[in-house]
């Protein structure tokens, strides 16, 4: 048995790469200079590491014959064989790349206009499209067979979905009331907080959130009444079941109370070239630097509309990355000494395959910065999918729910939402724990 952190090797498209066991496949690839991880679906635009948390779908690779494995969230084991999925002859040099001259001919809906009077041609074109545009790979029989899992049933008093700072705190709160608790989490317990700066109050002292998240994660793991599952909740279904799909098992959860602590998603910026490899979302940057311990960038521009810009700039500088500018698109002033603070917007992210330069419009002029990282540190949004689903499913129809663009409930009978998922602006683990306690007590009232 080898331990995490030990040097191992794996194969990447025929080459042998060295990595630390446990670091993400994406970080190992980027360390070796690979920035294009896949090609986009329609225009075959190069894509790379973006979100870091298995959300954006920009890093699918095939591992030992199994396609669609997220490189950013899959630890290197040692001995595996990794391949990129799209692009011919390779993701680096894809002859199918639709040039910017061609792209205007293919706007959304173009397929409804093409060949409408030539059905045969349309059919042929579709088959050709399926070959070239149609993605990826097909699993090998062995890889497919390995996915079978066993199903069991559990009836916890409280199910907490999401094991970040808030989720762990809520689980501890619920367990302190004597309730039986299950906690589902994708990836390392502690979540995004493990890579974040900042601090939060906990039991009378102000503690860095990363350390606190690690500590609460330890407490959760050690707690007898909390069952921790690594995996994803599928959904909240109308019968009340919340199935959890983990690495090697499926657990059909029938919780009395559901706590949604699914955290937040980073929000991308909206500017030309915003999908280029090298344009990376804030949490993805933090995770690369602070969890994977890899510094694949040399110079950075940070885009922000809140205090996260300064936080990320500080993290980057600490890791030895030169921060050449912090662009405040909301007009706020940055406070960090060192980098230039600009008020403006990104005019374009440029570079043929990966980011080479960022054009920033400041008032009437455009300034160009040579850089290989554009860190997008905009205000994050609640990861509200599960809470929204609760509302849709309760209504019996996903189309008959009012409530605006987000509209996720925060507290309903049987449901509580805590932390960033509920739109809390600050980390408040004590508040999350208090909600957990209340929910635990509520479950006791229902169940016993």
């Amino acid at each position, binding site marked *: 048995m080898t331990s995490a952190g030990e040097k191992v090797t794996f194969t990447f498209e025929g080459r042998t790469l060295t990595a630390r066991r446990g670091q993400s496949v994406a970080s190992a690839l980027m360390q070796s200079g690979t920035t294009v991880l896949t090609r986009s679906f329609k225009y075959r635009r190069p894509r790379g590491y973006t979100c870091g948390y298995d959300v954006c779908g920009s890093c699918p690779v095939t591992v030992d014959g199994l*396609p669609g494995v997220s490189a950013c969230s899959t630890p290197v084991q040692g001995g595996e064989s990794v391949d990129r999925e799209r692009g011919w002859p390779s993701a680096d040099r894809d002859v199918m790349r639709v040039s910017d001259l061609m792209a205007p001919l293919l706007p959304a809906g173009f397929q409804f206009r093409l060949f*409408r*009077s030539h059905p045969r041609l349309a059919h042929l074109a579709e088959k050709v499209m399926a070959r070239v545009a149609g993605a*990826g790979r097909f699993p090998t029989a062995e890889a497919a067979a390995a996915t079978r899992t066993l199903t069991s049933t559990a009836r916890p008093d409280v199910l907490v979905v999401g094991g970040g700072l808030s989720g762990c705190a809520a689980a501890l709160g619920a367990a302190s009331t004597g309730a039986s608790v299950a906690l589902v989490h994708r990836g390392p317990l502690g979540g995004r907080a493990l890579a974040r700066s900042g601090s939060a109050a906990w039991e009378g002292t102000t503690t860095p959130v990363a350390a606190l998240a690690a500590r609460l994660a330890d407490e959760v793991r050690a707690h007898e009444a909390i069952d921790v599952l690594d995996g994803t909740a599928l959904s909240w*279904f109308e019968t009340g*079941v919340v199935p959890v799909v983990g690495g090697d098992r499926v657990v059909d959860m029938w919780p009395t109370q559901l706590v949604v602590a699914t955290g937040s998603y980073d929000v991308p910026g909206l500017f030309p070239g915003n999908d280029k490899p090298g344009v990376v979302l804030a949490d993805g940057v933090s995770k690369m630097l602070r969890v994977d311990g890899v510094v694949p960038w040399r110079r950075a521009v940070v885009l922000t509309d809140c205090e996260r810009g300064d936080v990320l700039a500080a993290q980057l500088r600490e890791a030895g990355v030169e921060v050449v500018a912090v662009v405040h698109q909301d007009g706020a002033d940055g406070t960090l000494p060192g980098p230039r603070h600009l008020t403006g917007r990104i005019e374009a992210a440029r570079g043929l395959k990966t980011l080479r330069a960022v054009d920033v419009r400041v008032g009437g002029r455009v300034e160009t910065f040579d850089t290989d990282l554009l860190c997008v540190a905009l205000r994050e949004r609640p990861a509200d999918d599960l809470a929204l689903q609760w509302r849709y499913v309760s209504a019996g129809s996903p189309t008959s729910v009012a409530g605006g663009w987000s509209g996720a409930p925060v507290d309903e009978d049987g449901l509580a939402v805590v932390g960033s998922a509920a739109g809390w602006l600050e980390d408040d683990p004590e508040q999350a724990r208090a909600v957990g306690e209340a929910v635990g007590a509520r479950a006791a009232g229902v169940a016993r």
Partner: protein
Amino acid sequence: MTLPGVTAGPPASSYDVVIVGAGVQGLATAYELARRGVTNVAVVDRSWPGGGASGRNGEMIRSAFSSREWTQLFELSLKRFAELSAELDFNILFSPSGYLVLASTEEEVAGQDAIAAAQAAYGVETEVLGAAQVRKLVPHLNPDLALGGILQRKGGFAHHDAVVWGYLRAAARAGVSVFSGIDVLGVTTAGGRVTGVRTSAGDIAADVVVNAAGTTSDDLNQTVGVELPLIKARLEMIVTEPVKPFLSCALASPHMLGYCHQTARGEFVGGTERPGADETDSLNTTYHMLRDTATKWVKLFPSLAGVRILRSWAGTVSQTPDFAPVLGEAPGVPGYWLSVGWIYGFMGAPGAAQLLAEAITTGRVPDTMAPFGAQRLLDGRLIEENTLVVISEEAS
């Protein structure tokens, strides 16, 4: 809830024809009416056009059934599908890649020749495939379940939204008005004859009202005392991440109660059913059907076990005891026409709309349409069709 082709502003106070429901049936009927010169037509929908089953179905198209009634109606449709892109000036992405009805048991294999013979007799070209041919056509199938099949090469699938949008735009161009976000609350009559509809946007007068309201068509019938044995049933489907092309044709498995195809984008789209109807109008998906679907498709295509499901969704249909649609004027209510009870209403729409429009404009019921009249259900004369991918509780 607009789309290109949807009319802005409120409906007028009267039209020659009001069609309730802007699904594929309602819109195709409106288009066919306009083609026959009846353009003072309003299509009224409470949702967006295509927001019902027409935008949630499996997109599969065939005419290879076993009964004369089904075969002839759907053959007419299939022919129309091949013409529609040019005629509507909108590529509906009809893909005649073939439609394979898989045989997975010796019993099913034994029945194939008779079915194919009947199809040939009704003018539908099909081929009976042996195990080796089926495996050659669909190499990733589990060989234990690929014992044979009936292939209709001209069948296949089309993009459901594109069909709806194509009809919508063409109907609008021809002068039809299509309204979204308006609820039809009831059909109005005087002296036993239809006089129009009551809607959330006021009354609309019309001598002819067509019920193409999909799942809730029975509710509308109730408002004029038309009692038909219609039930609401939910169907569910999944779509996976895109993978390399591995399935070239549309495939139905009566044994598994499933149907599937692979899109040009590479997504695998499939649905399965269980015996008996899931009687609800809820659009939620269920956990047991998600597992049913996954289990059956992995059984048929073992490699799919390694492919990720991105999304599941549900749609609802109205269903008759013989699973055949009801087409024609409602018994006892002159002026009230029905295109309801569709479970294969996507593939059936182009043909049915043409027949219905012909009947409405000429007053004569075409032979192909006649067997689908509502009276059969009241008299208990059910249409017998053996190749449907759905079975009732009793039959299972």
